[in-house]
Each structure stands twice: as C-alpha cells, then as structure tokens.
C-alpha cells in the first residue's frame, strides 16, 4: 500500500504538467483580448508621442533657427568611446558619458542627437572633445573644430568618429549635413 502511495506521488508529479497546460489554454481567450487592447494602446501612444515630439520641435526649435549636432561611430575598432563634450562658440552646450549599450548601438549604425538648440544666422564655431580608450589600451583624447555659416534654414552637423586604417588610429571629424 505504501509503495502504491509513492507511485501516486510520481503519477501526481507527472500529471502536474498536463493540468498546467490545460489551465494555460483556458486563459488564452482573456489573454488575447487584453493583449489586443494593449497593442492598440501602444499604437495610439506611439502616434501621440510622435505628434508631441513634432509639436515640441516646432515650438522650441523653429526651422529658421534650428541647429542640431549628431554623433556617429564607424566600427569603433580603434576607440572605445567613453565621453564627448561639445562647445558652441566657446560655451559648453552638451556632454555625454556613454554606456556599453549606447556604444554598441552607435557601432551598429545608430546616430545620437547630441545637441538640439537654436542658433542665429551668421558665423559660428563648434568644437568637440572626444575621450576614450584608444589603440594599445591607452587613454585617448582628441578635439575637432569647425567654423560654419548658419543660414536661414535648419542646420545640422555630424561628429563622425571612424577608424583610420592608414595608421590604425581613430579619427574625429565634424561634417555639415546638406
């Protein structure tokens, strides 16, 4: 009789899974409807988020004065990016410390908007300081400067960090977006 009871435990153990499977199946209907409404909500919130982003830009950064600086990383084999500081006409307007995830996102083709602001028409100077770990695990720091003319339309610059295969060194450049 004892052995029989122990066998019952074993049977209960083996049957436990099937009851869970049935319980799970019975929840599928409810799950579906909630999931659907959540999906619809996500869609609507994304749309609202989009409209609000556009509204924010229209309101805070009108096209005539809008100025943005982006940062991109091509491969990043010779530089492990740590930090970036951006100066606009001698004022520090942005600085950023990078997490590993952000660096990976940049290496995979992502582009970070480092700064967004308003700028008057005329001549301006932008300087970027890039810090990280360079070749041979040595601390690396480099700056790049660009003088540019801000017209009456939006202006965008890109800080482009890329590997230079000629001397196995990273290269920092600032380029204007047309």
């Amino acid at each position, binding site marked *: 009789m004892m052995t029989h009871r122990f066998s019952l435990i074993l049977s209960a153990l083996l049957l436990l899974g099937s009851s869970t499977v049935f319980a799970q199946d019975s929840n*599928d209907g409810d799950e579906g409807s909630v999931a659907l409404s959540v999906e619809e909500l996500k869609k609507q919130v994304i749309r609202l988020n989009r409209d609000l982003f556009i509204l924010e830009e229209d309101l805070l950064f009108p096209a005539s004065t809008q100025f943005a600086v982006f940062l991109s990383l091509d491969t990043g084999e010779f530089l492990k990016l740590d930090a970036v500081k951006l100066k606009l006409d001698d004022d520090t307007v942005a600085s950023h410390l990078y997490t590993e995830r952000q660096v990976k*996102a940049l290496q995979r083709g992502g582009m970070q908007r480092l700064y967004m602001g308003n700028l008057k028409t005329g001549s301006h100077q932008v300087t970027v300081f890039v810090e990280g770990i360079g070749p041979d695990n040595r601390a690396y720091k480099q700056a790049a400067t660009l003088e540019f003319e801000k017209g009456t339309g939006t202006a965008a610059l890109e800080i482009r960090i890329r590997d230079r295969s000629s001397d196995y060194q990273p290269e920092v450049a600032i380029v204007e977006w047309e």
Partner: protein
Amino acid sequence: MAELFLIHQMRLLFRQTAIVAMACAMSAAQADEATPRASDTGYGMALYEYHQGNFFQALTRLNVVNREGGIAGHGDHPLLVEGGLMLAYGMTREAQRQFQALLDTSDVSDEARNQAWFYLGKVFWLEKDRDASTDALSRVDGELLEESDPELYHEWLYLKGQWLLGQSQSPESRQQLDDLLDELPVSSPWRFYLRYNRSVQSLTAGDQPAAMDELEALIADTSPDQDQPSDVQAEMLALEQQARLSLGRLHMGKGDFERAMRVLDEIPLDGMLSDQALFNYAVSASRQEQHGLALQALDALQKRPLFTPWLQQVPYARAFTIEQMGRNKQALAAYRRAAEHYVQLDQRLTEEQASLSESRLINALAFVREGAENTAPDADLSATGPALGESTMLTDAYGRVKVRPDDFSLAELLAGEAFQLALRDMHELYRLDDSLDQWRQQLASFEVMLDTRRTRREARIRETREALASMKVDEWTDRQEAFRKDIEQASANENAAFFMTAEQKALKNQLDRVENTLAGLPVNEKTRQQRQTYERMRAYFDWWVADEYGVNRWAAVKQLRELDEAMDTFVSQRKLMEEEMASDDRLDEFASRIARKKAELDRLDRQLDLALEQTRQSLMNLVQSELARQRQQVTSYLRASRHAQARLADGLFLNAREAAVQQNSGRPDDDTTVKEGSDD
C-alpha cells in the same frame, strides 16, 4: 512528461523570441556594412534607440521620420526594421500589417521581400495560425535567405521542421525532417530543439523506444563548443540537462529505475534542473529498495529552501522513505513535522489569498535592474530592484521582465507564459502611463511658454504702436499726396519754374532782387546799361530754365516715383504689422495643437487606466487560481501525512501493547520492539 513539454515549450518560446530580435539586429548590422553610416539622421536616431532595446522610442522616432517625409537612402530596410521592432514590442498585428504592406509594394528588392515573407511566417507562427505561417514560410527562398542572413536561415529551417512535426508522420516527412536537420550546423540550438521535439512526437505517437533513442543520441551529441557565445553555451548545457531529466523519467516510466538513477546522477547538483533530478532520483532509489540513497537525496532537497510548490511534497516523501526503512518512530516524527509544515503552509496560503493585492503581488516579486543581470540568484534585489514601468527594468528581447520570486508560492506561476505576458503588459502599460505623465507636464510647460510669448508679444505691440505714433505717419502720406498734385498740375501747365533746380531758384531770386533794385533807380546812362545787362541775363536765364525743363521735370517725377515706392513698402509693412498685431494666428495654432493633444492624452489616459485594471485583474485571477491549486495540493499532503501519522501511531501503540502483554506472560521481546528501540 507533459510538464517537461510545457517547460520545453516555454523555453522554446523564449529562445525563439530572442533569435527573432537578434535576427532583426543582424539584418540592420549587415545593411550598415553596406552603408557605413545612416544617410538619414531620423533613421540613425531610430537605430540608436532600437539597438539599445528602446523599442517604444525607436518606433516613435520612425513614426516622426515617416511623418516628415520618410527615410531617404536606405531602400526597404527601414520597413523591415520597423516590422521587426513592432514584433519585438509585442505589436504582432501591426507587424503583420507592416510586412504585408511591404509585400504588396511592387518595387521591393528580392532580399527584402524574402525576409518579409520569413517575418510574416514568424508572426503567424507566434499567433498560432499554422496554415498562414506555413504558406508564408513556403514562399521564402532558402538559398537567398542563407546568403543574406544565415541566422534567419537556420530559424527558417527550424520553423519548417516544426511544421513537419505537426503533420501526420510518413516516410517522406521523416526524410524531409532529416534533410532539414542535416542543413543545420551540429552545434546549433535549433537542431537540438528539433531533435528534442522529434523525440516528444515519437512519444506522443506511442513509440517510446524511438523517443528514448533520440534522447540518448541527443545527449551524446551535445558537447560544449567553446567557439559559441557564453549564453549559447549555457543554453546548450541546460538543454542537455533537460534531455537527461526527460530520459530519466522515461526509464522510470518503464520501471527501469537503475538506468533512471544512472541518467539522473549525471545532472549536476548546482544545475537548474537539480531539484527535479534529485526528487526523481529519490523516487527511483526508493523503488530500487535503496532507501538510504533516497533519503540522502530527499535530505539534500529538504535543506534547500522549498522554493517551488511541487517541492512541497518532499516532507511527506521523506517521512515515507524513513517509514520504508522500518524506522517507524522516526517516520512518525517526520510525518508529524510534515503535517505541521503543511498546516502552516495552508494558513499562509489562506492569508495570502485573502490579502492579495497588486502591491502585495509586486512585493513578492524581485525585478532585476539593467546592469544587475549577473547578480547571484540569492542576492537581495528588493532594496535595489526597479518598480514596474521603470525604464531601467531588465527585459528580454520581447519585453518580458526579468524577475525572481521572493515568495515561493509564485515560483511556478512565474514560469508560466500567461503570467509572464500579463506581467509584461503591466510593465508596458505602466511605462506608457509614465510617458503620458511626462507629456502632460511637458504640455503644461508649453502652455506657460505660450502665455509668456503672448505677454511679450503684447508688450512689443504696445511699443510698436507708440513708435508709429511718434513718427506721425499720416502726415507723411498727406504731404506725399500734395506733392503729387503739385507736380501733376505743373506738368499740365508746363510750369518750368516749378521744376527749377535749387541753383536756378537761387539765380532767379538774385535776378528778382536786381530787378527790384533797378526799378527804384533813376533812369540815366549808367542805369540804362545796367538794365540792358539785367535783361540779357534774364533772357539767358529764361532760356536756360526753358531748356532744362524736360530734365528738371524728369528728375522731379523720378523722385516722386521713388517716394511712392518707399511709401508703398512702408504702407504694406505697416499693414502686415497691423495684421500681425491684430491676430495671434501662430500662437493660436500652437495653442490649438496643445489643446488637441491634451484631449487626446486624457482619452488615452482613461483607456490606459482601463487596460491596467484589466491586466491587474487578469494577474490577480492567475495568482488566486494558483494559490487555490496549491492549497488543494497542500491539503492532500496534509491529509496523507495525518493518515500516515495515525496509522503509524496505531501500529506502534498496538505493538507496544502486544509487547507488554507478552512481557506480562513471560515471553521474550520480538524483533519489532528491538527495531523500534533502535530508532531512539
């Protein structure tokens, strides 16, 4: 065995979702190789969010770019990325629409079309629409997919294999499955999953020997590949243990407990399946009459926190094993302790059921913060763990939150797909709610900003009006009009004097003065000559003025025209200024956009509250059912423990009485009394 299948299916789902996300990312990475940098800043920003796993922000960015004219220079790739993002963000229906729209477009590259068919098949597969999934997957060009993305190709082979396993088995389908398996690399987890599923299918079909052969072969073939990423190695190790556990249980089912023990013995004690392995080992040892080994295994389990509900049978099983060893007094004590344990557990579960609320449920779960994923399993996460909705919450590629139970009664429930999905929805809804809250604050600050702009504008208008008033603008207009009339009249009368230059006017004044002087002088020889000189001068002057009339008139008209132009510009500018001062169009347009968005936000907020309530209720229902189920189990263990307790107590009492009777009648002690005495 069904339990194994459930665990397996869950793991499959997790695995499969992780691969989908990886595949999307890989596609993006490959496209980036072709185009070293994003040629569209909006798309670049979306990729930046996407590769960080911020699907909501990435989708928003893509939406913004699409709204502002679309993404330039990346072909169909953004559409695939957007579809993949939707899939990863749990928007399967939207993803389906996206891939279908891509396929309906005529000018899509073959590669993109091929991948879209694959993803569409994947969407249908996730939605359990087998026919649609099969149809979509059959349209994928395997060679092209292998060339463009080998990882996706392997996943495609796996899905096709799953489809074949779902079909009724024939020699052809078996051969097809063998061919698919041959295409998959030996070290691929997909190959393992397919082979495991094939053994499951054999078992379902009643062919237990085939199932066991497959599992044995699978265990033999699973050797660690150091070249694989560490997470894949860990997964393969877990899969091998799963196969061993399944095989051990099949041996148990056949009554071959010795083999079962050998197979289960290979599962490491610190492995994720060691609890189940130990328990099954104890059952097998007990059936082999090796009670010492069974008790050893159960003691090892008893020392562990009785974390999962199914482990609650251990106290009873332990007492039973001791009883099997003939130590009835120890067994009686063990049954008593087991019964006490079950009574306490039942009380606790009853209290939990009565006081269940969202906050209590959340308190019973320890969420993992991003960056803390490598924390030891027994580490206290409650102090540092994020709350639902926090952006730093660690989630998998499909938004499922990484969570450990602080309360063992939730452990099994937590492993269930329904609970995981409800928890994911809850987390997402809180995140959306948080996002709406932030926008509400932002809109309020926009309103303040607009009010400030209005105030500044009004001040400027006031200043402008005062400046215009001080300029006496109306007088200028009158004078311009009078000047025009004089010129027109003089032109009509050919009044040369009117158009004289300043020099001519000065000379005329001089000549007039001379004429007046001569008029007052007596007539004599001297004045006669003076008068003749004056008349010559006057005649020359008149001739000169007449001669210069055309030139002078043209100069005056030119000046009038320039004045007209200047006045026209001034008048139109003033009109614009007046219009600008009279209306607040731009600010009004912003204000109306803000008002519209606020209304939309309120509407969404209400819907969100409703969805949150539904999800909360769904979670509560799941937990309530789970607690009820556990109470039922605990009650059965309690009843069994008490019955055994009563039975043993009766036996011991009867034996003791019999012994006393025998002692009184002068007979020697029997074996039982001696054995019972040894328990002490």
